[in-house]
């Protein structure tokens, strides 16, 4: 059997590892644009704060692939897939035939139009290396004393900017704050995770950022960078802001160009059933590019979460070798934003909920949203106090109807 996997991130590499165990005599080809062996993107902020060395980012040694008899075609892109004759056409000029194909090509960071020196993204190891370089080029000011607060209103050279309102913008916040830079954070929404967090949760975070000395500019539509070959700032609908380094967190988007000759169905990702099978029965998808029918949410979800990618890689491999195992995981995303915990669990799109219940602790230092559909909790957001997160996760997993009316759970004294 010929198994071809596109993408060598956590989903693709885990699938290759599992396929090798389940089908020891098969031919496994792993095609990736990356030339590095598998590393964790989630560890990049630790590297950028100087907390771990670069070599600690890697999950697999470079030799792992050949040791496991996996043909790793590194540094190449997939140009087309012929699903009728079952082969993948790659930029190295070769065609790789497959019996079963797995697409784990992930998503790329959305980029702005301009590219002056000073613009930074945070998606790949190359991005992280570039950001380190840019931070080192900022002339010494109070940031060089390592971790001390930057001078408020200090000169442009010490000021950094961030444009974005979700996860990557918050990683930039943590990194820049660690090094003591003066920070301007501008975002399109009224608060962080606009469209997911309610106003109260958003306000809790906004106030915290302001208390930490961040210049916080919500409601700012992006208009462009300032400066020619070197960044001097950026402009928005709320004004112009000076900075010599700008972290951009405008989300990610999948690349479907290589699917153009196929009839594989896509939505915001490659659509799959709960077995990770696409509309073509011999083609599977897993990881950040997969929009999987979620058995708990009962609708398709695309979530970019490491543990989800790893688990999907494993299940895809099992199903490609004859299994029929549904992917079942209540995935959550967790981070600390300058010391305030934020956890997003499973399906937390308010527009898809029939009801949203807000539950606050007594001093409002912790705010929870429960998303309810069909009288069951399908997702939640927690900001500040996240101690109920595992209880909520279990509730979603048990898939049972709530014993009380949803409003009952507004009161934090009423247990979930």
């Amino acid at each position, binding site marked *: 059997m010929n198994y071809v996997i596109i993408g060598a991130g956590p989903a693709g590499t885990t699938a290759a590892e599992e396929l090798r165990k389940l089908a020891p005599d098969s031919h496994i080809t792993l095609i990736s644009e990356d030339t590095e062996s598998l590393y964790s993107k989630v560890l990049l902020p630790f590297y950028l704060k100087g907390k771990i060395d670069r070599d600690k980012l890697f999950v697999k040694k470079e030799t792992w692939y050949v040791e496991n008899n996996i043909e790793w075609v590194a540094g190449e892109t997939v140009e087309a897939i012929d699903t009728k004759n079952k082969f993948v056409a790659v930029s190295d000029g070769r065609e790789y035939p497959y019996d079963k194909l797995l697409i784990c090509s992930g998503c790329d960071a959305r980029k702005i139009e301009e590219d002056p020196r000073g613009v930074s993204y945070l998606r790949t190891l190359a991005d992280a290396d570039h950001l380190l370089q840019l931070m080192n080029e900022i002339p010494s000011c109070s940031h060089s004393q390592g971790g001390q607060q930057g001078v408020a209103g200090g000169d442009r050279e010490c000021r950094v900017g961030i444009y974005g309102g979700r996860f990557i913008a918050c990683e930039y916040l943590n990194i820049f704050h660690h090094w003591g830079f003066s920070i301007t954070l501008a975002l399109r929404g009224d608060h962080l995770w606009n469209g997911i967090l309610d106003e109260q949760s958003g306000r809790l975070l906004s106030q915290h950022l302001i208390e930490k000395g961040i210049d916080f500019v919500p409601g700012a539509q992006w208009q462009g960078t300032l400066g020619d070959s070197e960044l001097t700032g950026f402009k928005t609908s709320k004004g112009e802001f000076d900075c010599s380094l700008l972290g951009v967190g405008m989300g990610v988007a999948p690349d479907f160009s290589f699917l153009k000759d196929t009839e594989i169905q896509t939505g915001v990702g490659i659509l799959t059933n709960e077995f990770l099978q696409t509309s073509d029965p011999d083609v599977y998808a897993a990881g950040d590019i997969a929009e999987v029918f979620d058995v708990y949410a009962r609708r398709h979800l695309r979530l970019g979460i*490491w543990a989800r990618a790893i688990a999907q890689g494993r299940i895809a491999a099992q199903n490609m070798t004859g299994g029929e195992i549904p992917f079942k995981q209540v995935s959550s995303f967790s981070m600390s934003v300058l010391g305030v915990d934020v956890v997003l669990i499973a399906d937390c799109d308010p527009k898809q909920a029939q009801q949203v219940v807000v539950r606050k602790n007594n001093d409002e230092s912790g705010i929870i949203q429960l998303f309810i559909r069909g009288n069951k909790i399908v997702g939640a957001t927690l900001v500040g106090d996240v101690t109920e997160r595992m209880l909520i996760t279990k509730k979603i997993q048990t898939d049972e109807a709530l014993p009380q009316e949803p409003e009952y759970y507004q009161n934090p004294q009423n247990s979930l």
Partner: protein
Amino acid sequence: MKITIKVDPDLCIGAASCVTVAPDTFQMNENNKAWVLDHGKEPDGHTYERTFEVSDDEKEEIILAAQSCPTLAVLIYDEEGKQIFPEN
């Protein structure tokens, strides 16, 4: 066989995937980091490091839990003290 499991609280970001995969071995604490349990129990109280007996299946599950951690904060050592995950 005996294995040693260590959660590095400096690397732990509270993803809780270890708890999802191996709920008898990991549990979130009030700081949103994972304590290590011995078959669901905490002899001598909370800790980020334990050594105890496991079957082959239990060891497999614990290694899967360690692989699921996005920051490689779960370290596993064999009886001789050799690090078996992350592989280095």
